[in-house]
């Protein structure tokens, strides 16, 4: 068989123009990159280049294999179609370039046929994807997509490039017999009508015209790349590579001993790091964050996508202003260096907090991190919100009035309700639990948290847990009155100083007792002790009670009987699930006692927040619907006997929701510990 191939540049003259156009395109492309880079450099330095190995893995998993993109199957598959099409067409172009420009004779034989086939197959899939994109964007018009001219241009550009590519192939096959045309099945199919309509001379000129047209479009693609949403192709991958690998959902701690710090928290765009600004460019406006934000879905003004995009606009305004100032100072003072642009100067444009982002939006966030969890390219929304809250609390004293009471109570009595600190141990010691003072040899520290110690409803959970631990023979003790609020609400509300004082005291006390392992029933305490206390020197092994109980059951130390007949829906707490990946263990426990589990509409990674996180437990909710009532409605819709929780906040919020909907007879909210306790 003659070697399969085709003549590169068949029927084409003037190839050197190609290189000229390419150079022009690359210059425009580079300029576009440069323009964005100087915007990112408006931010502060931050080292994100550590852990390169993991970064490469992330790009492969999340970029190449579309791990998060595919979680939304309809747009995800479409995107995969376009992506794969691109990959194969890029591969084809690369091979041809090697042959044409680097004189590597590879474009023949099996490689040629492979390229032919895959280009046609995946090119067609890509074309269908583009059409599906356009249909979704312009006909179906989902809420989470906003439409700009850039969207239309990009779609039109890609569509035309793909279509002309196929037509060129079709014209060539129509003009010149191709023994391997079957491999280029799209072109082969097109050749039939083309041959019927045009004569040979027409086919040749049509081919030439289309080839150059296609080339110009391709060069336009390259030039337009860094000036449009197409840039997400590189920036998205980069954002996956650079994603945060430290404790999530929280900005860096503030070193209060540092006397040179003039401000706390961030109120200006330029105080954020370059990576934060980079985020805003990488964001492709897919809107999954918006689609999953409990605040947005319950009618609050807060919209995570809007925050990121509005910050991008501010970044551009800031960049323009900085460029103006530079120009002015250069013309004013000839021969002198322009002012260094790396220091955040007094910004006279729109205020980040207040004008660009309304303050109420900052307070509406429950820090549930569903936005970050759904984002396919790991944009970070929550730590910015907290950083801005810090500024409002620590510098401006501008925060919801209800928070003042919670702060003061945490300061004075180590719990947000302001109940006397000296009564913290009362309930637990009444159950016979010893403090570390009385029992210094205890293996585990049991950390009930403020709710477990003071809240009548949650005390029942503590009682259940204590019973279970005692039944399994676990040797544990409590800190008693020495325990203070873990500081989660304070920190998430932006009161970093209050958090700092609570946390450092707790860490000292625990270290003083030689605490190594901690069991807690509250995911906020759990996340705080496990992931955030290490920032201040507290390194302990922290276990959530559901995980611990499951271990006890699996190892046989805790024996449960099955109670058949009842059904339950389990509410994944944000701080247990999204923050710490604990989804299965509570469910396994429920199965172990013979409950039938039915899932709510939002479950697992997409679990709908109860509304209490981010310090919102202590605030009034005045906008839109009540988040907790929305979640309760989801639970009611599943028609189970129970709704199971593993968090005192969730228990309270869903309990309140049940009372508000007056379904207390049909549905009961219970903690996992309470459910297990009934079965020992």
């Amino acid at each position: 068989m003659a070697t399969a191939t085709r003549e590169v540049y068949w029927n084409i003259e003037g190839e050197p123009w190609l290189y000229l156009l390419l150079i022009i395109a690359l210059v425009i492309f580079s300029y576009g990159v440069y323009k964005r880079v100087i915007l990112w450099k408006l931010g502060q330095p931050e080292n994100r280049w550590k852990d390169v190995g993991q970064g490469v893995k992330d790009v492969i998993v999340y970029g190449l294999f579309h791990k998060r993109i595919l979680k939304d199957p309809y747009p995800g598959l479409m995107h995969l179609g376009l992506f794969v099409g691109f990959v194969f067409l890029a591969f084809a172009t690369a091979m041809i370039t090697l042959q044409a420009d680097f004189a590597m004779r590879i474009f023949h034989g099996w490689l040629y046929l492979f390229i032919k086939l895959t280009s046609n197959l995946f090119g067609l899939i890509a074309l269908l994807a583009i059409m599906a994109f356009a249909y979704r964007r312009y006909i179906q018009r989902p809420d989470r997509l906003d439409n700009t001219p850039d969207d239309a241009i990009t779609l039109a550009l890609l569509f035309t490039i793909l279509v002309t590519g196929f037509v060129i192939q079709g014209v060539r096959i129509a003009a010149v017999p191709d023994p391997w045309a079957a491999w280029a099945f799209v072109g082969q199919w097109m050749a039939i009508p083309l041959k019927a309509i045009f004569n040979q001379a027409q086919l040749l000129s049509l081919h030439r015209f289309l080839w150059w047209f296609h080339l110009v479009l391709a060069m336009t693609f390259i030039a337009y790349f860094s000036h449009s949403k197409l840039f997400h192709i590189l920036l998205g991958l980069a954002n996956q590579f650079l994603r945060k690998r430290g404790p999530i959902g929280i900005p860096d701690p503030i070193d209060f001993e540092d006397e040179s710090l003039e401000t706390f928290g961030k109120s200006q765009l330029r105080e954020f790091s370059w990576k934060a600004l980079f985020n805003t460019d990488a964001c492709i406006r897919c809107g999954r964050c918006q689609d999953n934000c409990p605040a947005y879905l319950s009618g609050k003004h807060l919209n995570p996508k809007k925050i990121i995009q509005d910050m991008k606009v501010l970044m551009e305004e800031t960049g323009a202003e900085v460029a103006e100032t530079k120009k002015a100072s250069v013309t004013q003072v000839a021969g002198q260096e322009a002012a260094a642009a790396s220091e955040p100067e007094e910004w006279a444009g729109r205020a980040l907090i207040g004008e660009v982002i309304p303050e109420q939006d900052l307070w509406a966030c429950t820090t549930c991190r569903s936005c970050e969890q759904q984002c396919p390219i790991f944009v970070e929304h929550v730590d910015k919100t907290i950083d801005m809250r810090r500024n409002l609390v620590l510098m401006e004293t501008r925060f919801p009035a209800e928070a003042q009471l919670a702060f003061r109570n945490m300061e004075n009595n180590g719990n947000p309700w302001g109940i006397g600190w000296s009564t913290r141990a009362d309930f637990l010691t009444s159950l016979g639990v010893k403090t570390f003072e009385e029992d210094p040899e205890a293996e585990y520290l049991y950390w009930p948290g403020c709710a477990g110690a003071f809240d009548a409803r949650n005390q029942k959970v503590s009682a259940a847990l204590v019973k279970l631990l005692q039944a399994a023979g676990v040797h544990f003790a409590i800190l008693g009155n020495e325990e203070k609020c873990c500081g989660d609400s304070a920190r998430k509300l932006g009161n970093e100083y209050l958090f700092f004082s609570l946390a450092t005291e707790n860490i000292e006390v625990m270290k003083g007792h030689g605490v190594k392992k901690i069991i807690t029933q509250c995911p906020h305490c759990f996340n705080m002790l496990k992931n955030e206390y290490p920032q201040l020197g507290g390194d302990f092994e922290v276990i959530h009670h559901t995980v611990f109980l499951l271990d006890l059951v699996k190892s046989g130390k805790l024996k449960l009987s099955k109670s058949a007949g009842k059904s339950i829906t389990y509410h994944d707490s944000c701080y247990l699930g999204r923050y710490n990946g604990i989804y299965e263990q509570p469910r396994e426990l429920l199965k172990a006692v013979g409950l039938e589990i039915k899932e709510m509409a939002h479950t697992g990674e997409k679990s709908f927040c109860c509304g209490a996180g981010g310090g919102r437990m202590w605030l009034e909710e005045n906008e839109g619907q009540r988040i907790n009532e929305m979640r309760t409605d989801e639970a009611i819709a599943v028609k189970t006997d129970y709704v199971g929780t593993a968090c005192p906040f969730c228990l309270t919020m869903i309990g309140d929701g049940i009372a508000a909907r007056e379904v207390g007879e049909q549905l009961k909210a219970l903690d996992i510990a309470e459910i297990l306790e009934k079965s020992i």
Partner: protein
Amino acid sequence: MAKGIYIIVEQRDLKIRKVSLELLSQGRKIADETGETLVAVVLGHGIEGLAQTVAASGADKVILIDDEKLAEYTTGAYTSVLNKLIRKEEPEAVLMGNTAVGKDLAPRLAQRLGVGLASDCTGMESEEKNFLSFKRPIYAGKAFAYLTSNVRPIMATIRPNTFKADAPDASRQAEIVTEIAEIDTTDLSAILKEVAISASKRPDLTEANIIVSGGRGMKGPENYGMLEELADVIGAAVGASRAAVDSGWKEHKFQVGQTGKTVAPTLYIACGISGAIQHLAGMGSSKFIVAINKDPEANIFNVADYGIVGDLFEVVPLLTQEFKKLVNE
């Protein structure tokens, strides 16, 4: 040379506020100890009748400044008049209650006079070196500071309910002096046009001694009439739990709790309130708590001093009846 302890007496609608009487009592004790004169300054319009009340409460001298422009409290007029008076008379100390008026007037006056101000004090005693020592809470109540001043006049505002107002002695005579109000018109940056009295004649929730509060058990906004009746009989304010406010039965200003008002009355009557911790955070420091709830397991019974397990729709009217009888005796 004795220069006098000046108490700025606060009056509204020709009724002297309780805190001024408390200050006069304490001022009297200190004046007796130190041999100083206790002078009461009253501003207003048509206030001649108040002189005797003030004298009976312990003042040696009463200065009345009567002027149309002083009929209602305005920052500008009162500051102007008192500034001139104090500069003329040069008292040893100028004291007033830490009320809304006091918080507005005292700092402004102190600044005009160029002296410091000890505000929201919870104690006042005579002191050897500097005549008066004031006690005030600092760091959100974690510690107390004792302050003295080495400039004159000493200025302080005192928290209401810090001192007890002694029983008035009607036989007491005081020197009564009328002064002309000297008002600098440049101070009159705001003119009071109208005072809209809020419709409720019930005491303000945060200041009330007795509060009758309704929760989810009230079942509807129309049933609050029952609580209002009881409140009127015993002179209480009416409150609500968050559940009631969320259901739209009462406005947010009536909400007692973590995200509402924090109250510390002598008596808190909780009707149909379960006693969730968020509510307790707002009323837990009440002196006495009475709970009425048909659920014997309700958490409110763990904090109540007296609990009635029953249907509030039966109990509350019964209470109203009984209290009416007591009040009429």
